[in-house]
């Protein structure tokens, strides 16, 4: 159990897909493919060089299978662990391990989402938890707000809104429900 060898793999190309409100009809897979193409261009590699592929998405069941078909490649090693926003850190660890083990040479980690364009309700599968759903928590925000309320209570912090990536809109005109956490 020596773990991964330091320096056995490196991140060589990085890119973003279109962001924010994207063109009508653009799918999560379109955006993922866009990002992958741009990341390959960033390091001078081609799609045919890719022999490892990783992705995780909320809008697509078996997203890795769809992505393989979309890209038209047959990677030797794939991964699609779904752990929410941390999925890609796990993909990175798995990709590094696969490269070190000689299972692939060029691994791409992709993601695409049209949540901003289609709205939150269309962007993820509704999950019913009989012990939580009846209280209508706005997840994941409510979970963070509850943790924050407890943190503020224990450590005497006060609440301040964090800088927002998107321009703030009034509650009445907002498509998604904003959430606030009260100061205890």
């Amino acid at each position, binding site marked *: 159990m020596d773990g991964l060898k330091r320096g056995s793999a490196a991140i060589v190309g990085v890119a973003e897909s279109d962001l924010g409100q994207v063109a009508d009809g653009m799918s999560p897979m379109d955006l993922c493919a866009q990002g992958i193409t741009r990341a390959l261009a960033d390091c001078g590699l081609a799609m045919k060089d890719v022999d490892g592929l990783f992705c995780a998405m909320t809008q697509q069941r078996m997203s890795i299978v769809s992505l393989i078909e979309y890209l038209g490649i047959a990677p030797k090693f794939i991964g699609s662990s779904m752990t929410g926003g941390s999925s890609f850190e796990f993909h990175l660890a798995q990709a590094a391990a696969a490269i070190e083990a000689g299972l692939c040479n060029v691994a791409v980690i992709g993601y695409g989402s049209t949540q901003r364009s289609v709205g939150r309700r269309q962007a993820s599968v509704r999950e019913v938890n*009989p*012990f*939580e759903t*009846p*209280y*209508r*928590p*706005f997840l994941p925000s*409510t979970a963070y*707000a*509850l*943790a*924050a*309320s*407890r943190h503020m*209570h224990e450590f005497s912090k006060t609440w301040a809104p964090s800088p927002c990536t998107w321009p703030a809109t009034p*509650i009445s005109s*907002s*498509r*998604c*429900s*904003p*959430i*606030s*956490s*009260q100061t*205890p």
Partner: protein
Amino acid sequence: MPNDATSPLATYISHLEKGELAYQFSPEANRAVFFPRVICPFTGSDKLEWRVSKGHGTVYATTIVHPAEGAPFNVALIDCDEGFRLMSRVEDIPANDVKIGMRVKFRVHSQGGEEPPIPVFTPEAA
């Protein structure tokens, strides 16, 4: 091996229908277990006993959800005196007045229709 005759959720709901807040207790871990499940998360044992809470608890964490439509409402985590924590809400007072550390008392809320009853809480009489 025959299938289990009932689910943890069904047992939990049957208690709520009698006006009781039920939870599980793990004798091997000597700890309360919530949400109800088929094995103890502390030991892996399937030996879990059902117990009925006295219904007294303390607000552990609280927040207000502002839905796109309708009035803001409270969502809270409640620590029951028997040592388990559950998501719920505190009723009868404005969402803004729910405070961490507040003593609360369980009551059953009927959701109506096909939905099962759920536990909610109200402030303990001062």
